[in-house]
């Protein structure tokens, strides 16, 4: 495997532009049947990443956490994810970054990372496979200090309408709305506010005009905002080590108010957010 060491975490804004350019190039090459069909055998690495205290505080306050020196697992995702996007923006990446859909996200945190602690980020892509509506791929990101992996995330993305591995089975499940435990009142600026603290300025979250270009009636909330807010709502009962797993259903159009249920389950906590349609389901499971 080729290892590409980047000098620092790239800015995600520029990466979306690069991703859009590479997506355009990919479309042209696809026409002449010279587009890549397999994942590049490459890992992107950035060493010595540190969290910024002001951004950490703003992230924690936006998500409803107290400003502690332990980095929320969703904040670690936000810090590390530009490295993954850099990998996806490579010309030999087989799926177009622009317009990809975040299907699900699994994070295993074995210990909390702390402010001031330097850590290494490593991103790879794996398991290009069929989906009912296109092709999906896992972006695997690990965050470690030395050999000790503190955080491992698997983000599953879908390129809709592009069938590189044939058509996958219909595995949609039905959603019966449970009794809510609360609600999230999400203002029109929810996407812009999360973009400011996460660095993820994907235009479909910050501008309704851009969202319309991708087929959404209005701007949509970041999936990771809803996932991180659900994790924050679980509270300290999640412990220092946990699995945090979410599936994204329909996007949350902004502004809106959604019902949520964050409640104890047999294994830990179940989380769900819905309005007239389901938006997010998942679980937070403390690790012994």
């Amino acid at each position, binding site marked *: 495997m080729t290892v590409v060491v980047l000098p620092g975490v790239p800015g995600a804004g520029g990466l979306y532009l690069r991703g859009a350019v590479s997506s355009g190039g990919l479309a042209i090459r696809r026409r002449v049947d010279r587009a890549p069909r397999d994942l590049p055998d490459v890992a992107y690495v950035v060493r010595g990443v540190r969290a910024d205290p002001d951004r950490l505080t703003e992230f924690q306050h936006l998500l*409803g956490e107290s400003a502690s020196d332990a980095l929320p697992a969703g904040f670690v995702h936000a810090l590390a994810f530009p490295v993954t996007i850099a990998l996806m923006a490579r010309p030999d990446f087989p799926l177009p970054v622009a317009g990809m859909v975040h299907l699900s996200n699994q994070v295993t945190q074995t210990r909390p990372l702390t402010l001031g602690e330097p850590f290494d980020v490593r991103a790879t892509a794996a398991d290009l496979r069929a989906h009912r509506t296109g092709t999906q791929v896992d972006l695997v990101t690990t965050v470690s200090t030395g050999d000790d992996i503190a955080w491992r995330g698997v983000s599953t993305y879908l390129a809709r309408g592009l069938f590189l591995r044939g058509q996958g089975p219909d595995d949609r499940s039905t959603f019966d*709305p449970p*009794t*809510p*435990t*609360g*609600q*999230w*009142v999400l203002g029109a600026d929810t996407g812009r506010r999360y973009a400011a603290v996460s660095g993820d300025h994907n235009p479909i979250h910050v501008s309704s005009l851009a969202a319309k270009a991708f087929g959404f009636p209005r701007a949509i909330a970041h999936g990771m905002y809803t996932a991180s807010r659900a994790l924050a*709502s*679980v*509270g300290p009962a999640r412990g220092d080590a946990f699995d945090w797993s979410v599936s994204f259903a329909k996007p949350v159009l902004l502004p809106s108010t959604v*019902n949520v*249920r*964050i*409640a*104890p389950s047999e294994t830990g*906590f179940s989380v769900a957010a819905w309005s007239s349609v389901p938006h997010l389901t998942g679980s937070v499971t403390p690790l012994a």
Partner: protein
Amino acid sequence: MARRTSTPTPSPRAAYVLGGNRIPFARAGGPYAHASNQDMLTATLDGLVARYGLQGERIGEVAAGAVLKHSRDFNLTRESVLGSALSPETPAYDVQMACATGLETVVSLSNKIRLGQLESAIAAGVDTTSDAPIAVSDRLRRALLDLSHARSTSQKLAALARIRPKDLAPSAPRTDEPRTQLSMGEHQALTTAQWGITQEAQDELALASHQRLAAAYDDGFFDDLVTPFRGLTRDANLRADSSLEKLASLRPVFGLGLDTPATMTAGNSTPLSDGASAVLLGSADWASSHGLTPLASVVDAEAAAVDFVHGVDGLLMAPTFAVPRLLARNGLTLADFDLVEIHEAFASTVLTILAAWESEEFGRSRLGLDGAFGSVDRAKLNVHGSSLAAGHPFAATGGRIVASVSKELHRRGPGTRALVSVCAAGGLGLTAILEAA
């Protein structure tokens, strides 16, 4: 030679409720609209002073609080004492425990009397939803604070440049729970649905509250408990002529988004209110040296809290856990009480608490008992009406209940006993036992 003996912990002396005073409770935007918390608390203290001859008296301590309080009122109680006819050498401090604030001041001050730290005390509470503090937005606040910390002109300009027009919109205090963003009414609607409480049952409780409060006023029960203020002589929310038909005609306002019928209306929920109350507490010696008659003793108290954030229990259900613990410690059952005061945040709050106590399943799985905790005889419940009729200026409710129930205990005579329960925001509940003196 010293002899080793095991002496049992001496039981503390009794702390007595000697009297109380409140101003009639007004509806938000009514006659107290321009009266501040400090205005109402001072007027209430002065009414107490006048009734019990406390002019110039140095009281041991005055504790009071308000749920909706401006940061400039950090010493609200002390400022009110300084503006009252009490001795300016009376110490005072602020307490805040959401809607349980008033009862908490009674509990903590009576404990100090029991321990011999104090001979006398005044427990009080006040709230205004009309004159509520309004804050600037977080973004404006942060920019202004950064501006005040800035040294150079360029830093100052940078702080100012961050302010956007929408940041100038004021932010009024909300009664939503911060962690769930649901209003108290929406939370109670979930609990109401869980326990299957009908609108009819809620309306019956609301009607009884109005009828009993009206009867108590007509009988003169409140003549030595209430001092008129700003033209009000009775609680403005009281509807003596209410009826089940009128109540049934009101449209539900909470729980409209649930898949069960919405049952909670403005008629069976408490309105936003303005008002204040105070309770005079003292030792037996202090009472007799001041020619005052002890009405009731404050025997014991228990607080509880529930995890409503994760839907384990309803937001206002903490008293269902506090009371069984309190009664177990005192070797009592619900049947041992002559009076039961359960604060009517909503009619359904009272009914869901009673339903939980009557539930075998709840008793076993949540209270760890062999079966149901017990039931309350409705004839003993809120005998002179409660918050549905009187209104509910948050921190003033505890003092209203304690003063009224102490007077009623004294009327009924020695050996009678009362249970007081107040639910509060944040999943809190505070309960207490009083006995006729």
